């Protein structure tokens, strides 16, 4: 039982904005779709929802082909980036409207709205308008509406992007708990690799409408399938060395060590992160980023090296990972 995308493709005029997309998301699994803006992640979500049509490929939910099924019959619970709350309706009315459209009896409607408001802890806000709520509360109303849909699939389109950084961190575990409550597939679109790592079981990295790699966060970080993924995932960003004989080497900032006899560097800038610090270095290999402990003092002369097994090696032309 799962959500399955087979060879999905979407074309605008003659340009494919999405192509050869194969994904399978299990029940109770949260898959993050990440990528730069315009990579096709939101389009994918809209195609799954039925708000947009694929030009090739198919979608199935629980083994049933829904490629040409109307949006309403796919039963998806969607959280929009803007939350898409009805500004003229109270919180309770926002939630009730969907139920009414689906023909649920008034008494049952009120009961379900009450239950869901309890679940997202917004009972006191029931009679307020969306404009009177904070960003986090609005997001919870949008989520509650998706939950009320009793969906087969959850689709979340950048649900955190309108919130400030601290709130995002606070809400993440709560959001994950709520959407995975009824063990349905969850597709989570975000441009923030950090958020994807924190919330998802697996991450699909999209680039120009195609999947670069699908893997769990640790695998993605430790064995990026391409230079693009290596650069996209992980902050501070991975160091990419100049190509040598058709091979590009990349080293994570935390893999760089101070060692006598290593590459001579000059310290350009220090950034304090609290528990650690980032050194921006200049070397004959170009600029390097190094993650060091917060207690580390700057030595007289900086020489750095790394263990050979910490090197990621990529084909300079295709950007694909080379076997170790």
């Amino acid at each position, binding site marked *: 039982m799962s959500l399955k995308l087979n060879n999905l493709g979407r074309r605008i005029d003659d340009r494919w904005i999405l192509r050869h997309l194969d994904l399978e998301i299990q029940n109770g699994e949260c898959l993050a779709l990440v990528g730069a803006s315009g990579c096709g992640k939101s389009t994918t979500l809209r195609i799954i*929802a*039925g*708000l947009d049509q694929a030009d090739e490929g198919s979608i199935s939910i629980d083994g049933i082909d829904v490629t040409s099924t109307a*949006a*309403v*019959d796919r039963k*998806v619970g*969607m959280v*929009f980036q*803007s939350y*898409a709350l*009805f*500004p*003229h*309706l*109270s919180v309770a*009315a926002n939630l*009730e*409207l*969907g139920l*009414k*459209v*689906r023909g649920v009896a008034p008494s049952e409607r009120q009961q379900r709205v009450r239950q869901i408001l309890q679940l997202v802890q917004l009972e006191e806000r029931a009679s307020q*308008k969306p404009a009177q709520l904070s960003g986090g509360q609005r997001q919870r109303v949008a989520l509650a*509406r998706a939950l009320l*849909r009793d969906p087969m699939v959850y689709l979340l389109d950048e649900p955190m992007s309108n919130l400030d950084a601290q709130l995002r961190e606070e809400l993440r575990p709560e959001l994950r708990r709520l959407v995975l409550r009824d063990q349905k597939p969850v597709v989570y679109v975000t441009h923030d690799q950090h958020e994807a790592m924190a919330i998802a079981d697996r991450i699909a990295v999209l680039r120009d409408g195609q999947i670069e790699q699908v893997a769990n966060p640790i695998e993605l970080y430790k064995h990026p399938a391409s230079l693009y993924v290596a650069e996209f995932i992980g902050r501070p960003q991975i160091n990419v060395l100049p190509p040598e004989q058709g091979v590009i080497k990349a080293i994570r900032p935390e893999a760089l060590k101070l060692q006598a006899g290593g590459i001579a560097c000059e310290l350009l800038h220090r950034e304090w992160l609290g528990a650690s610090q980032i050194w921006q270095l200049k070397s004959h290999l170009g600029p390097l980023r190094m993650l060091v402990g917060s207690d580390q003092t700057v030595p007289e002369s900086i020489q750095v090296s790394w263990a050979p097994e910490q090197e990621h090696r990529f084909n300079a032309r295709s950007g694909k990972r080379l076997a170790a």
Partner: protein
Amino acid sequence: MLLLLVPAAILLALVFVAPMLHYVWLSAHANSVLTGLVPIPNQGANWIRLVSDQRFWQDAGQTLRFTVVSVSLEVLLALAIALLLDQRWRGRGAARALTLIPWALPTTVMALGWRWIFNTPYGPLNQTASLLGVAPLNILSNPAITWMATVLADVWKTTPFAALILLAGLQTIPTDLYEALRLEGASQRTCFLRITLPLLKPYIALALLFRLAQAFGVFDLVQVMTGGGPASSTESLALYAYINAMRFLDFGYSATVMIGSFILLLLLCLISWSFLIRLQHRTGRV
């Protein structure tokens, strides 16, 4: 900061407040050919005359009828046009530009045009009628129907204005809202009733109030198209005030008619406003 409003306030005072106060003052005086155009205080005689002036009340009724019918038709038509122009289709840009043409035309020009269209027996309407073998229609000389012709001309001219306001309103509604409701299985009709109409309400109110005030003061259209006739059947309050001043040279009473119709317009706006407010309160429920 309030200091910055002073130039605008002075301008408004000169253009609106001063003439209005002058009219109020004038309405308390006899000032006509009979007084040699010298204002003489007449202890509210103008106002007593106004209250019992049958022509004034008849014109008030006619003006109200004209206003209510044409503004209702305009807003309904404008809503349909705005909805159409908001959809994506080929030639939408051209259609948007074309829609505005009647609004851009000077009222006098288009009023002359309509007068010619309804001309008996040579106007295009009657030419067409005679081709079809129908007897000529005396539209502009039949007191029972001439007012409808003025309504038609007004609707033709000012619907684009209301449509423009409503189109601007439609464009403020995010498409997300429709998609969210579509995912629940809502029909086009439900989306219109549950999202479009409630969110468009402030814009409808704006268009209504603008048009109400304009239509109630109608002058040039009627003056050019029918001259208030036949038998004063299309005479508006503004036209009556004009006739009092320019034909009867009774400036005191003309001012009284003006202020009187201003009060009626104020009442009309207040009534519509309270109605709209009450409508607004009904939202927020499912």
